[in-house]
């Protein structure tokens, strides 16, 4: 990148926060997405939203692209910029500006770590439900930009269900306020949902106001073992059909169980095909009733062992262990390619079968875990980037899995975003008109195309 342009950027954020040496750039070329890497031109770490606005103005004038970056944990290549691009890391913007107990909202800067917000609001008896597996490091800006889900998505929904207001810097450096603390707002187009899951392509979030709810009084965490995967899948559909909505209904298959247990030592069974991690929360009386109902359904569907966490520590350990599933799978092989196909939850059993069959057909190892209650599975191919043939077979298997998901009325990504990794599948899902409308929206927000180019389409 042109050194004199870097100087101009440096004048905005300061020398300490301008990284342009080879070594730094080399480690800002990746995020958690396998197989994708590209060094940016420069990395900036601004300390205020005003600095971000000035960066945007300067880059807009010069036609230079800007890629926002939180902690770089996304799984679709969303925070990877090209060699002429500017990466803007939000970590220093990490203040929780306000927790408004009267309006039940919290307002944060984009670099606030998700679990830091959890701690802050839970200390006041409040609750911010979205809890992605990466919550101890993911940023709120990243969560909004990817519309991240989490383990509690089944009952409480995903990030989009909690975003009430956004302060966004647009491509030209101007400021856009959308929504706010009001619970109803029909003035004009509803822009919040458009910005949520925009993957850094429509604007740069500098302020985020989210909805809070009262913290559930109690919760019960349960673990059910199943000798066969199909039994676990049918149990998921049966629980939902029985009108019980657990907060968490997570699925782990045998491969995943083994890897997680190797790391976390929480006593997961090594001799079953699948487990379900189930959490019900709310009023004590309701929780007791729902837990009993869940247990009965599990047993009816062939659960071989049913365990209820004895105390909060045990419950926490189980949930924490589940959060490590993806990384733990990487213990077995150097490269993990994980997908995010999502189907209507009644189709979970069928989807699991497709995954198994594709893995067998293409001779690859796939471990599957995920938010089964949401119909959101993460089939994860364990491979080695040095084995080109196996990688090719893995992609073939995923091709089939995506087609099957689409044919069941599902989607190619439930929570990880399209980014660069799933670009080629998007047209299959949304069709030509879908792409056309999306491009039109991009054009309206960012006519010069400088915000996170090369993502989504």
């Amino acid at each position, binding site marked *: 990148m042109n050194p004199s342009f870097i100087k101009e950027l440096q004048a905005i954020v300061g020398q300490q926060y301008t*990284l342009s*040496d*080879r*070594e*730094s750039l*080399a*480690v*800002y070329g*990746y*995020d*958690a997405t*396998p197989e994708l890497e590209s060094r940016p031109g420069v990395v900036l*770490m601004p300390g205020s939203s005003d600095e971000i606005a000035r960066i945007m103005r300067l880059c807009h004038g010069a036609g230079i692209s800007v890629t926002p970056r939180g*902690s*770089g*944990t996304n799984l679709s290549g969303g925070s990877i910029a090209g060699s002429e691009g500017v990466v803007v*890391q939000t*970590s*220093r913007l990490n203040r929780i500006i306000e927790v408004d107990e009267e309006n039940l909202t919290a307002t944060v800067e984009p670099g606030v*770590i998700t679990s830091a917000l959890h701690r802050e609001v839970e200390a006041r008896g409040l609750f911010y439900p979205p809890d992605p597996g*990466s919550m*101890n*490091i993911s940023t709120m800006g990243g969560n909004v930009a990817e519309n991240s889900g989490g383990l509690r998505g089944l009952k409480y929904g995903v990030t989009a269900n909690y975003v009430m207001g956004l302060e966004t810097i647009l491509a030209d450096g101007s400021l856009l306020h959308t929504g706010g603390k009001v619970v109803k707002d029909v003035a004009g187009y509803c822009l919040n949902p458009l910005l949520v899951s925009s993957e850094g392509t429509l604007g740069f979030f500098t302020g985020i106001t989210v909805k809070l709810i009262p913290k559930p009084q109690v919760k019960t965490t349960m673990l059910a073992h199943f000798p066969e995967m199909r039994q676990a899948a049918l149990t998921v559909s049966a629980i939902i059909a029985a009108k019980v909505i657990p907060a968490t209904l997570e699925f782990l298959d045998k491969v995943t169980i083994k*890897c*997680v247990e*190797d*790391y*976390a030592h929480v006593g997961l069974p090594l001799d079953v095909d699948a487990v379900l991690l189930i959490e019900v929360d709310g009023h004590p009386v309701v929780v007791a009733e729902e837990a009993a109902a869940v247990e009965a359904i599990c047993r009816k569907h062939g659960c071989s062992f049913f365990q209820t966490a004895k105390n909060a520590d045990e419950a926490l350990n189980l949930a924490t262990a589940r959060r*490590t599933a*993806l*990384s*733990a799978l*990487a*213990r077995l092989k*150097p*490269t*993990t390619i994980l997908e995010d196909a999502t189907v209507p939850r009644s189709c979970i059993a069928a989807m699991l079968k497709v995954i198994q069959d594709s893995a067998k057909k293409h001779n690859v190892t796939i471990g599957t875990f995920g938010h089964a209650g949401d119909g959101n599975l993460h089939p994860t191919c364990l491979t080695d*980037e*040095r084995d080109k043939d196996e990688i090719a077979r893995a992609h073939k298997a995923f091709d089939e899995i995506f087609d099957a998901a689409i044919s069941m009325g599902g989607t190619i990504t439930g929570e990880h975003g399209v980014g660069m990794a799933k670009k080629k599948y998007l047209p299959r899902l949304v069709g030509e008109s879908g792409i056309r409308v999306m491009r039109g929206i991009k054009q309206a927000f960012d006519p010069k195309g400088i915000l996170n180019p090369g993502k989504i389409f």
Partner: protein
Amino acid sequence: MDYVKLINCMRCGMCLPACPTYKETFLETASPRGRVALVRKLQEGELDQSARLLEYLSLCIDCQACASSCPCGVNAGELVAEFTCERKAEDRLSFMEDLVLRKLLPHPDRLEAAIVPMRLYQRIGLQKLVRTLGILKMFPKPLDRMEGLLTDLPERPLRQVIQADMPARGAVRGTIGFFLGCVMSLIFSDASRATIKLLTLLGYRVITPKNQVCCGAPNMLSGDLAGLKDAARKNVNIFGGFDLDFIVTDCGGCGAELKKYSHHLNEPSVASFSNKVRDISQVLTMHADELKAILTPLPLKVTYHDPCHIAHCQGIRKQPRELLNLVPGLKYTELENADACCGGGGTYNIEKPQMADLILRRKLDTIRATGAEVLVTGNPGCLLQLKKGLMDHLPQVKIMHLTELLAKSIGV
């Protein structure tokens, strides 16, 4: 270096919040994920061994908090250390490195002879040698910061005065070889005295071979793998001469190193040595009931700092807490992020004083928040770093080694 260990990192970032240098800087180059990537790119030829790259890697404290938090089994701290070792193997040791690592540390007499005459009055030499034990920059700047610590130095190193064979009190339960760390002997001799007393009270005969040598951790820190192997062979031989149930140390750093001897030397005698090594807290918890019977009330508000070398390197977290909770009247409060590094890092606080101070300050804030009167820990590096930190910023809080506190409660 094993390339597979490098490509095993799937870049999930789960280790970032655990890394003390990342927490202070938010820089990818100062994160475990970034460090693994730097070493990998070096191996792949994408980067070369620039001064800047080495500088970035040198900011790693080797606290191994990243290893504890990596679900995939990657140990960024160790990979950086391994890389440093390999690079060092190509270079020759510098004059100072040779002096300290080869001529001084492997010879306790010489080490003590070099230090004892200088004690107390010669700030520079003493601080340097004591604090660094293998640290190689001759005149580190922040020397007078340490002066206050020197006042309560023992008259003579414990190794010189300790009885090499201490009989068990009462019925004999077994025999323990005591590994007396250099810094414990030279500075925290009271704690090691307490350790030995506790063990004898519990029915162990305690043998402290006087010819044992430094565990080799400073060699490892400086990338001198050959020196470490020499130290390991000597110690394995010396302790091998006794019929021991356990080899016990009250120095977290030594314990971590001794347990790892078998990673560096693939010999049966080394494996059997390493298998016998225990941190003192591991042995004491085996005798919780006996201890309970002799502990007397100590109405103190106490908190515990997990040394990296005990929690992350040895996976010992429960035992010290269990022991503290045995003491009647003691009010235990858990420290927030108790297993976050204190910034001591062996000699890190002298090599990277700025970063070490930032990390220390974060630790002190959490200690302040507990309202504790006594901070307990189990590693001399932490004792030094935190003692100084408390003295400057939280003088009302006292620091003690775990065994000192237990001995106090027993009244010995």
